[in-house]
């Protein structure tokens, strides 16, 4: 049996921390608990609005952190003409949709806070793409621009009260209900055609963005598309190949305002990476600057781990109560020194898979059973 390899989650975690650190991001360590009020005021920003709470000794209602970004933003300061670059590696506590019980989830991510320019966005997208590549070469980073989508929805005349429902349709690529909703709201057919095209258009940015510019000219301010062209065009060619532009990547417009993105790995059913530019959240929390960042959900990666090997140990070494301790220890050390995984026991434990069963008799090791 070889040296036990690092699990994929551990390997990815080391790789990503080293990657972010190489780009000058410093580690942000957060407290285990945060005042519940912070999450209560920004529930829509959270993936799940269930939070584990308890009353602290001073009577304050506290929460086990369900999210890292909110805490980073809350503890950040506005630094004019400067950008703070942080990464984190933290456990968060969220309710699982399936079991309706809380789970501890390991989350790795980074945040870039301050005067966000094109380079910051390009760097964050680059690191998001590199993060996916660290997990698997079969990956896709899908991006959209929420500010642009929101503006297009407003301009075609969808009333504000229906905006969330319409964004949901876009997120589901649900063109039939989008059409029905727009008709109920009195949006004209040309406006509906524009929104349906936004749902349907999907592909590599360099192919899709020129089509979008034509489509949205006169409907929305297309400067975000020009920014997207600049930012994605400046990425390394191997990373550009991973990008897909698709408006179905949506988020809450109360928090996100610019580029939003999600990362997918082949054979995993959902996204493993999620991020975007969230200047609106910064403003909500009283900051004047902008921010962009993402999180990688490493708990999902266990599905990518190879199946366990055929054996738990190479050998089970049985010994009697009267066995000579020094002889037993020497035997075990001799085998482990040869790279074997050895389990010394008085009896064979239940449910253990071993290659060989050995017995120590006096100073001799006798084979009892061998599994091919």
């Amino acid at each position: 049996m070889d040296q036990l390899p690092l699990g994929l989650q551990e390997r990815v975690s080391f790789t990503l921390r080293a990657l972010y650190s190489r780009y000058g991001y410093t580690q942000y360590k957060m407290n285990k608990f945060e005042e519940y009020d912070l999450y209560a005021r920004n529930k829509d920003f959270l993936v799940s609005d269930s939070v584990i709470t308890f009353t602290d000794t001073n009577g304050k209602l506290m929460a086990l952190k369900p999210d890292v970004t909110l805490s980073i933003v809350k503890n950040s300061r506005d630094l004019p003409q400067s950008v703070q670059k942080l990464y984190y590696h933290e456990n968060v506590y969220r309710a699982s949709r399936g079991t309706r019980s809380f789970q501890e989830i390991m989350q790795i991510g980074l945040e870039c806070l301050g005067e966000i320019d094109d380079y910051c966005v390009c760097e964050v997208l680059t690191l998001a793409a590199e993060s996916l590549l660290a997990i698997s070469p079969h990956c896709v980073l899908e991006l959209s621009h929420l500010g642009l989508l929101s503006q297009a929805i407003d301009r075609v005349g969808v009333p504000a009260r229906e905006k969330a429902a319409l964004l949901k349709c876009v997120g589901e690529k649900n063109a039939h209900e989008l059409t029905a909703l727009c008709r109920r709201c009195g949006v004209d057919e040309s406006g509906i055609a524009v929104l349906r095209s936004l749902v349907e258009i999907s592909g590599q940015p360099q192919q899709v963005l020129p089509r979008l510019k034509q489509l949205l000219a006169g409907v929305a301010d297309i400067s975000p598309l020009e920014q997207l062209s600049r930012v994605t065009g400046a990425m390394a060619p191997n990373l550009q190949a991973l990008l897909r532009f698709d408006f179905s990547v949506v988020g809450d417009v109360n928090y996100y305002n610019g580029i939003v993105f999600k990362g997918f790995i082949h054979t995993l059913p959902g996204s493993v990476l999620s991020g975007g530019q969230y200047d609106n959240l910064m403003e909500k929390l009283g900051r004047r600057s902008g921010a962009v960042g993402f999180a990688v959900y490493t708990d999902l990666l266990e599905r990518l781990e190879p199946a366990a090997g055929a054996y738990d140990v190479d050998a089970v070494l049985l010994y009697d109560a009267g066995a000579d301790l020094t002889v037993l220890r020497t035997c075990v050390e001799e085998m482990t020194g040869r790279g074997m995984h050895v389990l010394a026991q008085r009896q064979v434990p239940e449910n253990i898979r071993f290659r060989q069963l050995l017995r120590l008799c006096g100073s001799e090791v006798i084979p009892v059973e061998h599994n091919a």
Partner: protein
Amino acid sequence: MLNIALPKGRLGETVYAMFERAGFACPAIHDNNRKLVFENPELGVRYFWVKPSDVAIYVERGAADIGVAGKDILLEYAPEVYELLDLGVGRCRMAVAAKAGFCDDPRRTLRVATKFANIAADYYRALGRDIDIIHLNGSIELAPILDLSDVIVDIVETGTTLRENNLTVLDTVVPISARLIANKAACKFKAGRINTLVEQVAAQTEE
């Protein structure tokens, strides 16, 4: 291989016929046996029959790339999937019904019997009405007859069962039909095949 989850029963058979006409046939599906999975390796499709309410779970969790589920299931469980097409079959409606002559008393909490607790809760939340949900798994129509509930929220097709039990529809919550859904990640890695299937099946719905 494209994995397709179809709902067991009449709706699934209707939908399979649409897929077959769209060029995604799997003749083995007509064999009279107890197999659960049917493949056509030449066309690269694999079908499996699942309980209608489970289709969305198979698709959301990636066991199926695409599937067909009723809008009622999608609204109730809100799975993280793409809803790509309204197939226009299995049409019915989610409705509120009560005993004929029922008059809502706003001073009392309204007792609502349903299999669709989330849909019912959303509907009454929008109306600002205080309700008590009684979750039942079947024979929902019995609840108001035995005074277990004031109203029911359930699927109504022809309305015959309601009429025969002296129940009447008070309001339509939402129209229901079968929808073609897809796993989000599968749409990134099998985009070409899924798009082709959607286009060809869409052509069947327009005929």
